[in-house]
């Protein structure tokens, strides 16, 4: 695994550098804004001068910028991402409370989206130019280009308002007292529309990706070799074309995770799903800058890690990297 080890080390190193850069950027954004950062954070006039001074000292805001940065890094290393103004507790805690709901939504929806998207994309790619291809392509393109929040609002309009099939939002029916299986059924019912939203748009993207990867793969010389062997068409599509087409699809998955985050924010906001995405919206509405800042770091770092995982998976499945160089 010599080739893979070298590859992995390089990728992990790059990830750490990126995270450091993100941390610096975060600092810069909030410090280089004109005006007293504290005044911006404390728009509530009921905060007294002493309290402001306390916070100033605690966060080292009265020291020169260089020292502030060291302070910031030190706090960060201790897992201190600031205190939420709105909830009066550590921002990290606020975020941690919301993570499970987001994970539930993302993992379910993305898994379905990737499977459906890859299948339809492979079909469309193998039938390029035909009617089925055009149909699949147009549908996928439309679903993908509609902004997630618009899709959410449309679904809500139709199914929640007009038809009352699904709830208006939230993760469970308030004060219902459901437990166990009943509770999870309720959650699933609430999760249906937001998940559908994610599946539409993420799945659409995967159809497009897989389709173009399939078309590329089918244009390669080894497909002609495979045909000359007299193999069945299904074997050619599966073992030769698709197997190669999946490689770039895996790569793009990593790159697209950042866009997935944007979609989650939109969908959770529309459906009031209590996850990290909705937290961003709530923090904006409540002007809770520490939480906003903390969420940014957490999301950015999560994306870097997810990218890293995807890169490592890719390195493992591409024999050219796994086994290392040639002669």
């Amino acid at each position, binding site marked *: 695994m010599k080739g893979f080890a070298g590859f992995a080390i390089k990728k992990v190193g790059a990830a750490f550098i990126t995270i450091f850069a993100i941390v610096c950027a975060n600092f810069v954004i909030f410090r280089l804004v004109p005006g007293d950062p504290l005044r*911006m954070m404390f728009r509530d006039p009921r905060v007294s001068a002493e309290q402001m001074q306390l916070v100033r000292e605690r966060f080292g805001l009265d020291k020169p910028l260089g020292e502030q940065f060291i302070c910031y890094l030190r706090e960060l290393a201790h897992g201190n991402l600031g205190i939420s103004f709105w909830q009066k507790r550590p921002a990290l805690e606020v975020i941690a409370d919301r993570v499970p709901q987001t994970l539930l939504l993302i993992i379910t929806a993305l898994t379905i989206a990737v499977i459906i998207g890859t299948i339809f994309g492979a079909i469309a790619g193998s039938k390029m130019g035909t009617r089925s291809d055009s149909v699949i392509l147009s549908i996928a393109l439309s679903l993908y280009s509609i902004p997630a929040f618009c899709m959410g*609002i449309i679904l809500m309009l139709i199914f929640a308002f007009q038809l009352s099939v699904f709830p208006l939002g939230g993760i469970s029916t308030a004060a219902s007292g459901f437990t166990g299986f009943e509770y999870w059924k309720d959650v699933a019912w609430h999760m249906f529309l937001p998940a559908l939203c994610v599946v539409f748009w993420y799945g659409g993207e995967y159809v497009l990706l897989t389709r173009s990867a399939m078309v590329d793969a089918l244009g390669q010389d080894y497909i002609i070799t495979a045909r000359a062997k007299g193999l069945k068409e299904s074997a050619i599509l599966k073992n030769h074309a698709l197997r190669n087409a999946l490689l770039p699809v895996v790569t793009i998955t990593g790159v697209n995770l950042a866009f997935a985050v944007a979609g989650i924010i939109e969908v959770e906001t529309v459906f009031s799903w209590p996850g990290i995405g909705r937290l961003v919206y709530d923090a904006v509405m409540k002007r809770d800058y520490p939480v906003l800042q903390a969420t940014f770091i957490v999301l950015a770092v999560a994306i870097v890690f997810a990218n890293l995982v995807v890169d490592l998976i890719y390195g493992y499945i591409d024999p050219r990297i796994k086994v290392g160089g040639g002669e």
Partner: protein
Amino acid sequence: MTKLLHGLSSVKRFVMLLWTNKMGRFGLMIFAVFAVIAIFAPFLRTVDPNATGSCEDMLVPPNAQFWFGTDDLARDIWSQLIYGSRISLLVGFTAATIAVAVGTTVGVTAGFYGGRIGEVLMRLVDFFMMLPRLPLMIILAAVLGPSIWNIIFVVAIVSWTTTARVVRSQVLSLKERAFVEASRCIGADDFLLMFGEIFPNVVPIIFAQAVLVVTTAIYSEAVLAFLGLGDPTTVSWGMMLHFAFESGVMSRTPNWIAPPVASIVVLIIGFTFLGTAVSDVLKPGYKEMKGL
């Protein structure tokens, strides 16, 4: 001057080429419709979209006076819809212009000079690309405050990187080509080379990028407005949705929600199709395939 005229006529030719593509035609028509609506807004039976009214005019369902009804501050939804097109197109195009201009400059410089400058610039691009776009836009917008220029700036700041990358790789491949060597032989200096020879060949790529960036810019403005970060004095479609969302009466006023949502979706789909058409048209062999 002649290069400029040449550039303009090539744009015209490009647009006509787009018209031959089915998706391109669709996209161009949508764009035309919204452009007309935006330009002729005052003549389309509208009132001041920001004009609030009295209590009995609030949340009125569609009638003869208010074609789409009114919102919770008695503002005419129809007028908001019509004038909203101005914001979407204005922010979209302005932000895209800035982003593409910055991206092109960075791309051409990095590609043309290479070496240390190129490396530094590309690291900068890589870094910006790593930051998650929507969260970045959100905190920037939150920190800078709600004004239309802040929105334009924020959108531009996350959109310039792809253009930079694409332009740079095009410049790199053009640099190797013989005609650059030939120009150098006759003593053309760097600047002349950059703008005289390389730039004209990068223009088609820039145009393709511009269409894509406009699409993202329109989307970004809509999202930011929906999340409450837009400029409350200039009502855009996203802001309309935000107000509707916050009002608590959303479930009972489809007349308030459906028009802006539909407008955003149609405009963005139109531009997306246009973007696909642009990349189809730019593929080598397109003209031959169409028998032109």
